[in-house]
């Protein structure tokens, strides 16, 4: 498909909404942005073992279960904020679909005192179905550049 200003705008707004809903822990709204065939992965390269690693891999159903069970989890309650800068929107092989590459910065804001800390940096590569009324997220790969997350985090980026 042709990547017009409107297509790019719709894709960018959809990605922003996916970040906002996760930041607000409104997981129902996040999942509503995803297609049923949604695939999510967090990948990282380790220079220590010189291997590419997959830190999390979920389809729609397993992502939903993970998010549904969060209230039962003891977790770091300091909220995180996902910031993105869209770098490139390209069309995918004649389909009503775009691939969007964005830079990602994740900040953590401490509940006690409000200090903002850089929590992680990386990239999103998103595949988005543009054929319906609303764009739907088909696939998200989070490619992290940073690898040190303290205790870790129960909510995906």
């Amino acid at each position, binding site marked *: 498909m042709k990547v017009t200003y409107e297509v790019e705008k719709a894709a960018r707004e959809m990605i922003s909404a996916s970040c906002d809903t996760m930041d607000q822990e409104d997981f129902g709204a996040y999942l509503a942005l995803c297609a049923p065939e949604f695939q999510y992965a967090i990948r990282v390269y380790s220079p220590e073992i010189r291997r590419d*690693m997959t830190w999390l891999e979920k389809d729609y159903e397993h992502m939903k279960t993970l998010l549904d069970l969060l209230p*039962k989890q003891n*977790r770091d309650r300091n909220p995180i904020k996902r910031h993105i800068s869209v770098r490139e929107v390209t069309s995918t092989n004649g389909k009503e679909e775009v691939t969007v590459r964005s830079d990602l910065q994740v900040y953590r804001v401490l509940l006690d005192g409000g200090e903002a800390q850089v929590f992680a940096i990386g990239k999103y590569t998103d595949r988005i179905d543009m054929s319906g009324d609303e764009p739907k997220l088909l696939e998200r790969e989070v490619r992290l550049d940073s690898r040190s997350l303290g205790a*870790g985090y129960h909510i995906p980026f």
Partner: protein
Amino acid sequence: MARTAEEWRKRPELDSNLIVDPRIYTDPEIFREEQECIFDKSWLVACHESEMPEPYDFRTYQHPGGHNIILVRDENNNINAMLNICPHRGNLLIYEPSGSIKGASPSGGPKRITCLFHAWAFDATGECVDIPRCAEGYQDRVKKEDYGLRGVKVEVGYGGFVWVNMDENAPTLKEWLGGSLDAIDDTLTEPLEVFHYHRAVIDGNFKMWHDTNSEFYHDYMHYHNRITGMMHPGYWDREYRTFEGGHAQVTDMQLKYESFKGHEKRELGWPGLAPGRWALVDLFPGITFNIRAPSMRLDTAIPLGHNKVLVEFRGLGLKSDTPEERAIRIRDHNSIWGPFGRNLPEDLLGTYGQGRALSDPTDAPYVLHARLEGNKIHDEVGMRHFLERWQELVGRDPSDPYHNQPRAAE
């Protein structure tokens, strides 16, 4: 009603091996003793041989005694360990965590460790092979034969792990393990490969992390473990077995993963373990072998100070895995034990919380290691057994580390 300061600091009326003065976790002087009496004398896992698969591959290791170590595989496939210090003027020889010396470096030729400062060069066994303009500068006062690197005792074994010991008079690895890993040797028969590595740095003492790995009472913290373990009868039969040297094993159980909504079906096992079974050994002073079919996790605790610990986490599969099997092991490992897993961040939050709460040594209460349940799963014998060994080596009583000297606040 809350207790007064005096009541709070009163020694509980329990046997001395059941209570701990938490200043053993927070005193910088005790930590220096631990570096010398424990870490410089223990066999520690530096890495796994699969992290340096080819001749001339290297890996570095930050030793808890404060030493920088290089591991290099030589052309005969032997792994050598040396201090990462150039004997000329003390520069670091290798700066990256991992790589190969097979090719030339900017300062020197191939198959050598060349110091980037003045280009002294060493082979993969640590022998000095070149000193630039040696005769011109040193005449015959300095010879390369006399300037090899400092070697470190190294053994490869128990699943292909690379173990080092700073003490040249240390017992063999087998003697030091006291039979603890022999108890799970049927799970370590096949060549293993590391697929996961990450670190966590936590403001807490290394013993707090090892304690968490050495007791299961904290399964109350993990929804995942309550559902897949504690709710099922085999859980309460799991038992601690202790071994000489401060090591402990927790016997196997069958986990009921189907009870945890969203878990993949487990059909893939592990050598010596049926699908969903679990083997665990905690080694003194901070290593945990943790095999929960279909994947294995290895923790190594590296204290960076009395109140800071770096924990290295490795995930392992079998070298013989098909890509499909490997993908299952990775997904399984990381859904529980990865940085975004269900359990690991909870465990680390526990250590962080202890580190923060006990950081004020003037108002430390006594803490309890007092659960006695016939060595069954919620018994705290694992932590007590660790501290018995600790007391032998450090020479302090964990319940009275200052020999009845008044507590700081009194």
